[in-house]
């Protein structure tokens, strides 16, 4: 039978051959230590304890290292590995729960052979059970060992970071980053072995770019607790991150943006932390870099988060964000249009922002173009911007807007399935814009036929 041949090909530690199952379970596959299996004194496991652990092992292995389970371990009814295999008088084996269910439905036949059962006894197939257990246990142990290896390596790296300097430090950081990204279990190890505070301590006013960029690449993948985030918000550390945002590779820049966003989620966050001109200038540069769309998206996301703090808005306007963002609008992907418009909308609430919007000649045409084009949120922001600008200088802007085709778009909004508030806004804006026109002229601007009006 196939499974016995397979048994012979199992590799035991030390390369020994299996003499019998008892020995195999005692010495080799289910040897003491690791795997978390409660082994009895003679190496056999208690029946119920076995079942629970077996179930757990099957589940974990299924998700972590899916491998083809030998067909004879599979229940013909559920097609799942059997945890409690029982054999019928026909010699076929099934999962106990499943075959009992089969019987309870009134069938007294063997599901696979279709034979009528002359004996309704179900016999636990201990041999098969032990084989299944052994097979899964071995793989489970291997999995655990591998993951522990990785965790051990991570802990090792964290320890080494306490001592090494220079190029060795950079290499250790690079290695740690690779492991953290590849194995989620390592994140906890790093946190537990004091890795987070160690990594934070590596960031200071004299940290080189090489070290700093690797540290951020790791921290951005970890779950940082409140204290860690607060300590990372120190001005000297933020300055370092801003420098890297200015000078790093695109990946470093994206990591820095995500890092700052992470810090901003913290309760103790104060807006002064991000009120740095260098940061805003660096972000704008990132946002405008068309060669790297994911950089643009990351930059816009952070800028949006910063913009939500009204005290920083005038600073953002002072670095020329408004015209630069407005000019970007036509070429942005849909995912980027929304944050960009959101930022401009937030900036319009600041007087400097509003006048910058008004002064920029592309604001109105670009905003009008985006109405009803991307998403309801985009339409809402674009409408809000247009409303603010037209209210500020109705004479100038309203006509510009109408020339850009605003009226037709507003009618679309009103007729669409958008929210009532949005429609209301659109109607008000339409009214505002129509004030300077005669009815006939305005209707022609709306490109509508008389019947629809």
């Amino acid at each position: 039978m196939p499974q016995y041949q397979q048994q012979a090909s199992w590799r035991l530690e030390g390369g020994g051959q299996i003499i019998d199952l008892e020995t195999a379970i005692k010495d080799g596959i289910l040897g003491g230590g690791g795997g978390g299996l409660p082994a009895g004194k003679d190496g056999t496991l208690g029946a119920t304890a076995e079942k629970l652990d077996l179930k757990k092992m099957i589940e974990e292995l299924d998700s972590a290292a899916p491998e083809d389970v030998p067909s004879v371990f599979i229940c013909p009814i559920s097609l799942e590995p059997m945890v409690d295999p029982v054999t019928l008088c026909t010699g076929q084996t099934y999962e106990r729960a499943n075959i009992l269910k089969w019987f309870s439905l009134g069938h007294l036949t063997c599901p696979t052979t279709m034979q009528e059962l002359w004996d309704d006894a179900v016999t636990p197939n201990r041999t098969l059970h032990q084989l299944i257990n052994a097979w899964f246990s071995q793989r489970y142990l291997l999995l655990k060992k591998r993951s522990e290896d990785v965790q051990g390596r991570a802990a090792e790296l964290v320890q080494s970071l306490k001592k090494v300097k220079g190029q060795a430090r950079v290499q250790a950081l690079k290695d740690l980053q690779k492991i953290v990204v590849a194995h989620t279990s390592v994140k906890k190890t790093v946190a537990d072995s004091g890795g987070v505070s160690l990594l934070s301590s590596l960031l200071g006013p004299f940290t080189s770019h090489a070290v700093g960029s690797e540290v951020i690449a790791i921290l951005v993948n970890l779950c940082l607790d409140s204290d860690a985030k607060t300590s990372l918000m120190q001005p000297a550390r933020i300055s370092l991150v801003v420098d890297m945002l200015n000078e790093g590779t695109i990946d470093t820049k994206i990591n820095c943006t995500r890092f700052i966003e992470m810090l901003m989620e913290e309760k103790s966050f104060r807006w002064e932390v991000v009120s740095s001109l260098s940061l805003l200038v660096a972000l704008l540069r990132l946002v405008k870099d068309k060669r790297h769309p994911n950089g643009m998206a990351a930059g816009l996301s952070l800028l949006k988060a910063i913009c939500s703090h009204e005290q920083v808005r005038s600073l953002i306007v002072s670095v020329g964000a408004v015209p630069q963002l407005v000019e970007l609008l036509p070429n942005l992907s849909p995912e980027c249009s929304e944050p960009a418009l959101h930022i401009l909308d937030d900036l319009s609430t600041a007087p400097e922002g509003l006048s910058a919007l008004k002064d920029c000649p592309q604001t109105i045409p670009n905003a009008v173009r985006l109405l009803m084009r991307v998403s309801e949120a985009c339409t809402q922001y674009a409408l809000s911007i247009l409303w603010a600008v037209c209210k500020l200088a109705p004479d100038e802007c309203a006509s510009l807007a109408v020339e850009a085709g605003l009226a037709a778009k507003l009618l679309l909004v009103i007729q669409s399935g958008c929210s009532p508030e949005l429609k209301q806004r659109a109607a008000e804006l339409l009214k505002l814009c129509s004030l300077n026109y005669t009815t006939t002229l305005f209707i022609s601007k709306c490109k509508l036929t008389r019947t629809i009006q």
Partner: protein
Amino acid sequence: MISMLYFVVESMGSFCSRQQPLNEVDSDENKQAAEIDKRIDRETKAEQHIHKLLLLGAGESGKSTIFKQIRLLFQTGFDEAELRSYTSVIHANVYQTIKILYDGAKELAENEPNSLKYVVRTDNKEIGENLSEIGSRMESPCLTKEIAKEIATLWNDTAIQETYSHGNILQVPDCAQYFMENLERFSEVNYIPTKEDVLHARVRTTGVVEIQFSPVGESRKSGEVYRLYDVGGQRNERRKWIHLFEGVTSVIFCAAISEYDQMLFEDDTKNRMMETKELFEWVLKQSCFEKSSFMLFLNKFDIFEKKVHRVPLNVCEWFKDYQPMGSGKQEVEHAYEFVKKKFEELYFQNSKPDCVDRAFKIYRTTALDQKLVKKTFKLVDETLRRRNLIEAGLL
């Protein structure tokens, strides 16, 4: 270039056809000219690989100290002859310092409301007058043990100590304490200044000094070659010679942040920080630095640290909107961040939009601390190397 081409063409002719050139007499001259041209070519190419750094800043901002530190770190340092040459400078500095303090005490005693605390003890007055006279001479005498003792006595006078702690309106040099504390050593017969002494020594820089060096990294590769220029800091005709530094790789602007309550040497009605602010603005606007990186060294942090607790930042007009938040180390950091933001603001206000791509970094320095200067320079080196790679499209 033209004569080189001629040379090449000529020699091609002689190789191919083996004909004698018509003007055989000139061939030697041509060879020489060609050699010279080749040399010029090589050196121009080599020159392009040398990164030029220009130290700028107001007087006493620490430029020359940084310059000396670089010499100590990356060149062979000072040899004994050079160290000896500083002996007279240091002695002169000592006399100058004590003179300023004594004269200053007299002035404060006359003009300040609590004048009594500036009145020197009667038995020290004679010493004071004597020293003041010596200090005003062009050539200072050697510092003997006797004079050193007298200076020490005067220094310990409470009036002088009081004057020292209010030294901001006088021109007391920052290293006054260092000089006074080392009097005994300075007055030794065989005194040879240490590196530390030389770093503290004050000589006003005139003209331009330059050094060429290669920062040796841990990999021991020779790496980049730098040439550092130090120009005088006082208010002379800057605009006339600044354009000679067009296209330097980087401007290292030194600003002594501890001088927010001090007045200029050249004009004691002008606040030093305001002068620095104006100078920085001026430098930023110069078109010759459009492509240069700007490294701002906020210097004399050690003095700043201590001063912040005693003297509020608001005494300087530029910092009048400063609001202290706490005390201790946090306050120092808060104050430093405030000053840094002010400089940042100034930078962006005065940089044209197309200069936005030039590198701008701020470093906190204490020029007298060799370890710090080394660390700082490592960072500057890294930034400039990265810049190079980015510009070459390799990063």
